[in-house]
């Protein structure tokens, strides 16, 4: 094979930058920065808007296929126009606001939720140098924007002046707050090891291959795997997805804090949930799965943003897969699971990562000891805490009457 062209300057790789330069070159110098920002916004909204539409369809198709039925296939070939049909239906629905609801708050809640969900996309590196805003404290920005979701959920629950939505808003808040902690604690080891809070720095720390073929992604280290699992479980809870979708537990409190919403506002909430899910998966890819790096040196020719897309899609499919399988946790079990299982595990994970970074120089037999100790530090607490969490819960055997 001819000298492998440097992956950085393959044609496909530089396409987005070339496109951007082409567009921004038309603007005078002071406005170029503004045009670049605007272009990034348009790109994010277009890509993730379409991904949202595709996700709603994919969710229903996969859920259908899992349940031995074809899923929507009436609107357009294989149901591809279903999102458009849903969109039109939802937007043309009457937007009913209860008379004694708090109109200002009732309107503000979906707006803040959607705004914070979209703002979170600003720091995720989608490709080699394809990050909309390269902040020095990018990861911290991502999670501080995420923190406003609680506010919006509270506003939604309170402003509807409805007994059900108030009860559900309380539950949603308790869940969001109790899963904020493991979410934040799970990425602290990544920052500790890669030494920087900026997302591009973290992705750079995961470049290169060990032994020629294994990528040095954080997920392939013991503490990285534990952190990744804790991050994904907390992300499930943060975006109110499957085993933790208590707030909209349709079997109990109808639509939870969304009971009094209809029409366009309900679509905002729905969209915000999917954007939140996508943003959290994007951050998971950046922190643990090596951002836009290719898994094998041989596959370097595929452009970096394609790799980011593949990893993102696979994580989202995992979300849908989990939704199709698990029943829902009860409120107290949900919070107990967070405080008595995830938070201790995340703290111990900090210790494992500290040990991992201190024992950086070890090699040969010492390397085996390093991996061994790290694995023990990860698995033993998992088993012990797991046994304590499910004390008294076990499949039972049954006697038979005569």
């Amino acid at each position, binding site marked *: 094979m001819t000298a492998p062209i440097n992956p950085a300057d393959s044609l496909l790789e530089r396409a987005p930058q070339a496109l951007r330069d082409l567009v921004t070159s038309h603007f005078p110098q002071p406005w170029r920065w503004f045009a670049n920002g605007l272009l990034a916004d348009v790109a994010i909204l277009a890509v993730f808007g379409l991904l949202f539409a595709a996700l709603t369809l994919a969710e229903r198709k996969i*859920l259908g296929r*899992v*349940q*031995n*039925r074809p899923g929507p296939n009436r609107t357009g070939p294989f149901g591809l126009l279903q999102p458009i049909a849903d969109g039109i239906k939802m937007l043309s629905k009457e937007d009913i606001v209860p008379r*004694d609801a708090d109109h200002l708050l009732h309107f503000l809640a979906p707006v803040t939720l959607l705004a914070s969900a979209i703002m979170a996309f600003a720091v995720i590196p989608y490709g080699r140098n394809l990050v909309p805003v390269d902040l020095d404290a990018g990861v911290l920005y991502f999670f501080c924007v995420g923190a406003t979701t609680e506010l919006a959920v509270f506003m939604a629950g309170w402003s509807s*002046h*409805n*007994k*059900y939505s*108030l*009860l559900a808003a309380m539950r949603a808040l308790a869940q969001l707050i109790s899963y904020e902690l493991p979410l934040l604690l799970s990425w602290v080891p990544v920052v500790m090891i890669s030494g920087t809070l900026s997302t591009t720095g973290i992705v750079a720390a995961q470049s290169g291959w060990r032994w020629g073929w294994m990528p040095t992604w954080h997920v392939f280290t013991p503490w990285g795997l534990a952190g990744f699992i804790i991050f994904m479980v907390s992300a499930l809870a943060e975006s109110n997805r*499957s*085993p933790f*979708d*208590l707030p909209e*537990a*349709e*079997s*109990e*409190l*109808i639509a939870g804090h969304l009971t009094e919403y209809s029409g366009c506002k309900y679509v905002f909430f729905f969209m915000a949930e999917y954007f939140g899910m996508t943003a959290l998966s994007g951050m998971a890819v950046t922190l643990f799965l090596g951002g836009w790096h290719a898994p094998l040196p041989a596959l370097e020719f595929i452009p970096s943003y394609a790799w980011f897309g593949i990893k993102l899609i696979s994580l989202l499919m995992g979300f849908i897969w989990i*939704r*199709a*399988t*698990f*029943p*829902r*946790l*009860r*409120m*107290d*079990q949900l919070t107990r699971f967070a405080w008595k299982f995830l938070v201790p595990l995340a703290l111990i994970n900090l210790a494992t990562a500290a040990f991992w970074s201190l024992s950086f120089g070890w090699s040969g037999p010492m390397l085996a000891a390093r991996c061994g100790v790290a694995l023990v530090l990860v698995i033993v607490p998992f088993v012990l805490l797991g046994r304590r969490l*499910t004390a*008294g*819960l*076990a*499949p*039972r055997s*049954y*006697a*038979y*009457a*005569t």
Partner: protein
Amino acid sequence: MTPSPLVPTGGATVRAVNDEFHGDLLEVSMGPHHPSTHGVFRMVVTLDGERITKLKPVLGYLHRNHEKIGESTSYLGSMPYTDRLDYLNAMTNNWAYALAVERLGGLSVPERAEYLRVILAELSRLQNHVCLAGFLLQDTGASGTPLMYAFREREKILDLFEALSGSRMMCNFQRFGGCRTDASPAWLAQVAALVGGFGRFLDEFEELITGNEILMARTQGVGVLKGPAAVAAGITGPMLRAAGVGYDIRKVDGYGLYPRFTFRVPIGAHGDTYDRYMIRILEMRESIGILEQALRDIPAGPIMDPKAKLRGFRPKPGESYGRIEGPKGEIGFYLISDGSANPYRYRVRPPSFVNLTVLEDLCLGHTIADSVVILGSIDIVLGEVDR
């Protein structure tokens, strides 16, 4: 704490309780159009925070005056109405009614009809328990996947009922002294094929759900019903066996041909929702055993007692009580005949209604999410509860 009159504070109609410690008790009405109540059933739940302190079931939304109509319709005319009692198990309802009338009129039933009745009753038990497992997991929030697997199997059984009796759920198939039509060998072969594949389906279903930690957390230790309390409340069926009392009318009465079949009766040790779920899964496995034995031994012969008259059936004055082990419990029919074509008194002993009486005792101290799961595990059908 004596509840003082309602104090309107904003949206919540809050019954202010002058017990300073508990604060305001929130009264939430769930149903009758709530997605998780099985049919038109309403629960007025008084909540202290998340805990349930009082639960008042409200019934009667589906009352159709079934028993009074029974008094003004002929014995045969009431048979199609029994399909509408527990509309999931028309075959067992018909059998119980036919049993009561046969005891009243002193009719005998040919061998083949008895075998066919056992086969249909066990098929009905299979699809009822599969339905319950699906609904229970739907209540715990499993977004329909186990429910769809359960319904996939149930549809196969309902297709068999349709091929035999003409309708999937409203079978109207039993007559006094036998069955309406004979089962063709092709139909029996289809039943054998279904029974053969049902064991594999149950294994896959249990693999999906029974070991699931979330389900165990949601159902173990929830809604505990001890044996003596169940017996005192007159509970029958899988709920009673889950509470540890091995009372199965198929063994106790030995009606139909059940003494000929060897099957076991599973009993639970804890009496909680998980036990009620597991007992039904194990009962399904026993039913498969019974079906295999019945299909092997079913003889040829008449399907209907030749002496039985279809019209103008006037039993001698007297009374009779026919009961069978329905999928939900003991379903019985009590008839008083005054010699005319219509029964003088027509009474149904509905298992769902009796099992429902302990709902409040099971739910006290649990949360709303638990009350939904407990209601699901009691397995009620409002057609039978309200009659």
